[in-house]
């Protein structure tokens, strides 16, 4: 008896060690799987930051000192306008007047105009952050050898002026204000459309409908729509809003003179359809989570269904609904494909002025700039991505804080 046991034990012991080793090895590989994604994220952030800052070799066509003995920022508007008129060809000045009359420009904008029209600083060469930090001496040597009239400056491609300057075709001087405003307009209108409809549908499905064929069809539809690629929504938007409902979306029906439906309204309608399933599903869950004892208390006092929903269920579900809406908005801000289809224009430099303006958005600009070969476009693309990621980070943090704040209060 003992002999059998010891044989079994020694064999089991050897086997056991091997099995533990195997388990540990696999644990490491599973852990690795988890971290590879995080590792890629780090590399992504790293490369973006790398390309958003660095030294540039800049040469001015005209030396600012030759225009005025005082720095441009300190000159008055009249002086700036006269510098402009003196140094710019008549035709060019006429064009400038037509697009953006100088009398209406602020002083900072006039300085920008003088810079871009006369001084014309051109980036001859730009470097990424890592080479900038490690090879400074070599960069300075290159400038002295090849570009004696230029200077080496450290450039942060993301800067306050980057945020407030309008789009331009020159990567040196471009800002993203036009795109930021476009994104903002579209998001606000989208939420105004999708939020009430989404909540309404969720309330109907959770509080009013019995489990009949109609609500089952609606539920299946919503689940399906949530999984459809966003580009299909773009096709829908193109066919129906841009083309089919052209008269409405282009503003012709209220007398606006333009012929195409590639407007903020079309974009917002398309994006609403895109995020609607997300809002509905999330709102449904939030409403379902409201305990039935709350409803029963209300009904027991002789309240109608509407009163119960409006006074008790909705307020209780609202934190969850808001959190979900913020997340849906994050999703919408980063969407590109549907907006390409609905006609986001990449050559716009006028700020959107209303529902019926043509538009561009930040992701579209990123797409545009990424696909250009020149190195400076990489820089502005990276800077734009940084802006986009910061906006998304803020939104998501707000959502998480909101969720935590309200779950703490509920526990009372």
């Amino acid at each position, binding site marked *: 008896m003992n002999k059998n046991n010891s044989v079994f034990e020694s064999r089991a012991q050897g086997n056991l060690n091997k099995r533990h080793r195997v388990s540990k090895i696999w644990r490491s590989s599973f852990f690795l799987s988890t971290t590879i994604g995080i590792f890629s994220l780090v590399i992504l952030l790293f490369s973006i930051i790398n390309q958003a800052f660095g030294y540039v070799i800049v040469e001015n066509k005209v030396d600012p000192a030759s225009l005025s003995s005082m720095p441009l920022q300190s000159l008055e508007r009249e002086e700036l306008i006269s510098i402009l008129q003196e140094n710019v060809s008549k035709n060019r000045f006429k064009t400038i007047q037509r697009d953006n009359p100088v009398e209406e420009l602020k002083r900072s904008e006039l300085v920008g105009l003088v810079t871009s029209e006369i001084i014309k600083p051109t980036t001859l060469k730009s470097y990424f952050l890592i080479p900038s930090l490690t090879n400074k001496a070599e960069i300075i040597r290159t400038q002295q050898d090849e570009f004696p009239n230029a200077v080496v400056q450290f450039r942060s491609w993301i800067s306050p002026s980057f945020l407030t300057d309008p789009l331009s075709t020159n990567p040196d001087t471009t800002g993203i204000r036009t795109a930021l405003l476009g994104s903002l307009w579209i998001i606000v209108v989208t939420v105004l459309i999708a939020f009430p409809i989404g909540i309404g549908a969720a309330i109907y499905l959770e509080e009013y409908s019995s489990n009949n064929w109609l609500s089952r069809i609606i539920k299946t539809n919503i689940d399906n729509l949530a999984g459809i690629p966003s580009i299909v929504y773009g096709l829908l938007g193109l066919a129906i809003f841009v083309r089919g409902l052209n008269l409405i979306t282009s503003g012709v029906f209220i007398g606006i003179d333009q012929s195409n439906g590639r407007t903020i309204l079309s974009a917002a309608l398309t994006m609403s359809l895109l995020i609607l399933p997300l809002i509905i599903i999330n709102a449904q869950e939030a409403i379902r989570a409201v305990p039935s004892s*709350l409803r*029963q208390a209300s009904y*027991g*006092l*002789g*309240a109608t269904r509407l009163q119960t929903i409006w*006074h008790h269920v909705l307020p209780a579900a609202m934190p969850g609904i808001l959190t979900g809406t913020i997340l849906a908005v994050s999703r919408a801000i980063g969407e590109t494909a549907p907006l390409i289809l609905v006609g986001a224009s990449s050559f716009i430099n006028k700020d959107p002025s209303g529902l019926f303006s043509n538009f561009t958005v930040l992701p579209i600009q990123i797409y545009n700039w990424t696909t250009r070969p020149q190195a400076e476009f990489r820089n502005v693309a990276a800077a734009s991505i940084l802006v986009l990621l910061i906006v998304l980070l803020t939104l998501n943090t707000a959502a998480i804080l909101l969720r935590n704040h309200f779950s703490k209060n509920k526990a*009372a």
Partner: protein
Amino acid sequence: MTENKNQPIIIVKDLSIFYKTFRAVKNVDLEIFENKITAIIGPSGCGKSTVLRSFNRMNDFIPGASIQGNILFHDKNIYDEDVDPVQVRRMIGMVFQKPNPFPKSIYENIAWGAKMNGFSGNMDDLVEKTLQDAALWDEVKDELNKNALSLSGGQQQRLCIARALAVKPEIILMDEPCSALDPIATLKIEDLMRELSHNYSIIIVTHNMQQAARASDMTAFFTMDEDRAGVMVEYGLTTQIFTNPKNKQTEDYITGRFG
């Protein structure tokens, strides 16, 4: 005080309650008397809560629930086509097993129901009166703005009673109101019930036989028959049921031989 033969305020005639095709309660005949406390007792699962909830049409919310028979409130069947269940629930109030105050202030809890039902008088007075009637005023009169969820279980339940009183019902249904409370809070509520019965009619479902014996005027004893449907076995004055039950099943339950 002249002995007034009390009128029945609810007359239940041949009531059966169905969940889809399953008969949960069978052929109940019962009269609830005005300004009396009526207890419904019996073992678990014999339909006591189901019967109680049929009195204020709360069963309407359960898909597939239906009734046969009549429940007459002031001689009108509350299940008639032209009767508004919302109004029924205003006139027949309910206190639930687990206290469920709204996540609002104490004041708001009471004010909300009254406002919604069109109360246009002095709300402060109403809040004070109902809280006094619910024996809670002294404990909370200085903190009416405090969140109701910060009260103890017993206080929350009394708040729920005050809330129910604020819409001025005629009948108060109580579904095992003390089962989530400690013995002292329980006694407080029983005293409260006795006070309230001067102005309201109270129907209470309870698991606690001693509570029924202590606190009620009339008692109905339910049990489950072979088809698992609830049936009323005996109904009468509490003193009679507990000292001299007419039915052997009643006697067995009361003496603890089963249930």
